[in-house]
């Protein structure tokens, strides 16, 4: 079994890159709005469907479809927050979190109402894996598509870092995340920042949802299937920390794959939870603390 470790590590790293995108989305919303949004699941699904419409109905290439997934899920995120969640913010973060559970049920079922439960796939050719000789570590296989996906995920992360680090709006968002009181004293419009956080956060969820769906299939449960892993990644890394979400995604991704050496594959879902318990026992606020945007 241990001879498989290099392959398992590679599988885990690729899975982690994919998980990182929606995990960043989740943690961004948390950083600004201070509640864990369960609606991340349905927005990932919405992104997967938006990408499907762009790719299959309009015949656009997968790269453009990913952009469509981002924009449509982002807009849905802003609209659904405006309609369903915004007025609840005064009742405290847990109320909003509970409402976001309800919201995700509503959105999942709107998708089901419109599209049914049938599985759909993208017009993307599935490619054979590359085989790479790692010398003493043996042969490993790497999927070109996983590498493309990982590349897309890295680009999305890079753009976000540049946005948050170097643009005025990005800096405004970080200011609100770091200290909402101070930010409002400085005259930063909190509502506008909240909208932006929702757009980016849910947009990334949609982007990640399409990445997942390219490997699986588009159906109303696409986002729901990765929800627990997204939570685990964000919590392990530290809620509200973007680098933390990336790190957490790798910990969970690699952990889930490596666990196959010691655990039945049916226990894979438990790995994320175990990672949470271990990390939180030593660092109650996750690996990279919080507000370390």
């Amino acid at each position, binding site marked *: 079994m241990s001879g498989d470790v290099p392959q398992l590590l590679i599988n885990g790293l690729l899975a982690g890159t994919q998980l990182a995108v929606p995990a960043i989305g989740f943690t961004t919303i948390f950083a600004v709005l201070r509640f864990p949004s369960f609606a991340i699941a349905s927005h990932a699904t919405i992104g997967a469907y938006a990408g499907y419409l762009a790719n299959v109905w309009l015949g656009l290439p997968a790269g453009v479809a990913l952009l469509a997934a981002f924009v449509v899920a982002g807009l849905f995120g802003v609209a659904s927050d405006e309609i369903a969640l915004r007025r609840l913010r005064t009742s405290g973060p847990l109320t909003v*979190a509970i409402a976001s559970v309800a919201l995700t*049920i509503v959105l999942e079922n709107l998708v089901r*109402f419109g599209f049914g439960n049938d599985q759909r796939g993208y017009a993307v050719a599935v490619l054979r894996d590359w085989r790479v000789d790692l010398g003493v570590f043996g042969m490993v296989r790497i999927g070109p598509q996983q590498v493309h996906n990982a590349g897309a995920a890295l680009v999305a992360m890079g753009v976000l870092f540049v946005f948050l680090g170097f643009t005025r709006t990005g800096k405004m968002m970080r200011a609100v995340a770091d200290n909402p009181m101070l930010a409002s004293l400085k005259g930063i419009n909190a509502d506008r920042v909240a909208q932006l956080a929702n757009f980016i956060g849910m947009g990334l969820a949609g982007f990640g949802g399409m990445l997942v769906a390219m490997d699986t299939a588009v159906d109303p449960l696409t986002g729901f299937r990765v929800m627990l892993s997204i939570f685990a990644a964000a919590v392990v890394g530290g809620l509200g920390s973007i680098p933390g979400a990336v790190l957490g995604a790798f910990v969970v991704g690699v952990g889930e794959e490596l666990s196959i050496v010691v655990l039945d594959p049916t226990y894979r879902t438990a790995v994320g939870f175990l990672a*949470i318990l271990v990390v939180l026992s030593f660092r109650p606020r996750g690996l990279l603390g919080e507000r370390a945007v």
Partner: protein
Amino acid sequence: MENYLLAMAVFAGCYALMALGLNLIFGLAGMINLGLVGFFAIGAYCSALLTVKLQVPLLLAWPAAILAASACGVGVALVTARLRGDYLAIVTLGFSEVIRLVASNEIWLTNGTDGISAIPAPGRGVLTPLLFNLQFMVIVWLAVGLAALLVARLSAAPFGRVLRAIREDDVIASVAGKPVLVFKLQAFAIGAGLMGAAGALYAHFNAYIAPDSFQPLVTIYVVLALTAGGTGTVRGAVLGAILVVALTEGTRFLGGVIPGLAPVQIAALREAIIGIVLILLLTYRPGGIIPERPRTHRLEVS
């Protein structure tokens, strides 16, 4: 029809027991628990396994189920004591999923995804289905009555006041000399015990349980019951449970009202309506139908 209403009353009673348990843990002590279906499952499996595999009498199996769920509650509380609310929400959610995984995988103990069938109950097969349901309805609502009494007493007692103090600010509570951890553990133990009791009753009424009976949706419904009814209040928890069952069941009858929809669209609409009603309730009755009356003076920053 009466038969159906009685059965739904039994399910509402189970939800009410869980909502009362959640009221202690979340409503009074302020610790969010999104893993309550895990305690429900532990109670159900414990009682079912004892009676089916070891032929333990019900009157011993039910207390055992409560104790088992309680013990797990203490365990979860110990592990999560240092965590802030949002972390606690996700950790407890993970806990209930792990319970479901264990129930699916440890086939030697739980019979896996096949589930456990023929769980005994007094009078099953002897009484008519109507009388059986009636009898069970009485048992479950007696349990709810007892639990409500217990939670109301605890809530009015110094114990409840300390829990509320912890909810508002556990640092102040501990500075005031209260052993915060002990109180949290007690709240979790009693609350989880009530959820275990609900699980035991549910298993014996249904005669069958399987890992899929314990999906996170149950947690959502109970949280919905408590928040809709009135977090922190006993009457709110019970009323909320009835409301949730009325909502999930009442929406079944909508299907015939709208013509021209495929069954999958009706099913989707039904679930969407349940979600929308919850959001509306949270928006327009943020304190629930029976809001908690403030018992202490406190300073609100927000």
